[in-house]
């Protein structure tokens, strides 16, 4: 099982994307192949940006700020997008489990 993908550090959570998957970028979107499960995932530009922002140092607030800056959208909308995207990435096993 993938378990939780969020790294708990005090009160903040800092998700970290898996680097042992194979990514191919196409016009801002990405195909991600997971050799553990042999599944392929399609990430749209927003999901790809959020996934790349999961560097293990940025918490959800910092990731939201990056999305606001990149896509010039309302912060409330961005927060909802980030929360949904992280939940999906976690569910698909594309984030590291806590060690």
């Amino acid at each position, binding site marked *: 099982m993938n378990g939780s993908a969020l790294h708990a550090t005090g009160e903040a959570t800092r998700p970290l994307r898996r680097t042992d998957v194979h990514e*191919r970028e196409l016009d801002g979107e*990405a195909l991600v192949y997971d050799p553990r499960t042999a599944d392929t995932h*399609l990430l749209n530009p927003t999901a790809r940006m959020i996934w790349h922002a999961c560097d293990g140092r940025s918490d959800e607030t910092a990731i939201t700020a990056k999305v606001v800056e990149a896509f010039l959208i309302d912060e409330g909308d961005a927060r909802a997008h980030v929360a949904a995207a992280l939940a999906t990435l976690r569910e698909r096993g594309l984030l590291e489990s806590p060690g």
Partner: protein
Amino acid sequence: MPMFRRRNPVERHFTIGAVHATVRTRLSHAMRHFTDMYGEFETDAAIPGAIQLEIDRPRRKWLSRRRYRIHVNGTVQFEPEKRVELVPYMEWGLNWQVPRTMPDYLQFHASSLEVDGQGVILPGHSGSGKSTLATGLVKRGWNYLCDEFALVHVKRMQLDAYPRAICLKKAAFDAIESIGVTLDRRKHFVKRTKGDVTFISPTQIRPNAVGVSCPVRFVVFPTYKAGAASELMPMTRAQAAFALHRVCFNLFECHRLGLDVIADVVRDARCYRLTSGDLSSTCALLEQVVSAAPSEVIRCA
């Protein structure tokens, strides 16, 4: 001396585009049907690595029904009972081996065509209308590569021909004849998954109809809907690549990582979803697409 002597098996060799096959049988009707479809691709000598297809009909044992046996590369693959099932199973046996014996190719479940040196892939599962569309487009001057496979050579990144006979379901006969293609309705076969089918060689549709190797420039996912207006919806390349990986026969068995090849396939292609209803208007729409400059808007019929 035996009362009668069994006929010696006849062996013939075929190079059907990228696919080589040797067919061996004592059954003259089986060989005749095969050469009716592939006679123009017959070669004098065996090709090393060719797919071996052998058909026999052993005597029945006790009360069991007498069956044909189709051996593919030395293994009995199918045992159809009826003669009308034989040709579809021979075809199936051949297709069965293509993904297993051709790791230099990434292979998709798709029709593939060439027009003015541009490769067009029409991927889709059975029933999506790939073969009917391929027949219609060949009739209008496009060149045929295959109605069941898109074979992309993973080093050359070219789409190659496997000009197998086009398999048409009975439900498509009227549409095909309405565009001026003559079918021999008496000569039909029964395919387990498709019911009554007929096979037509691309050169019966149009002389010199087989295309040449070419790069993939268009990926169009057709869905047949009876009575629907023909409609094209653009897809992103990533969406097309994702959909392509789902119809890939050998994603993990070819000589390069399949996903990388797929990404390279779509990188220079324009990608669409197609709803097809009427055959002529759908073919006209696709002609418009391939002749339009990349920036032009394609208006749906």
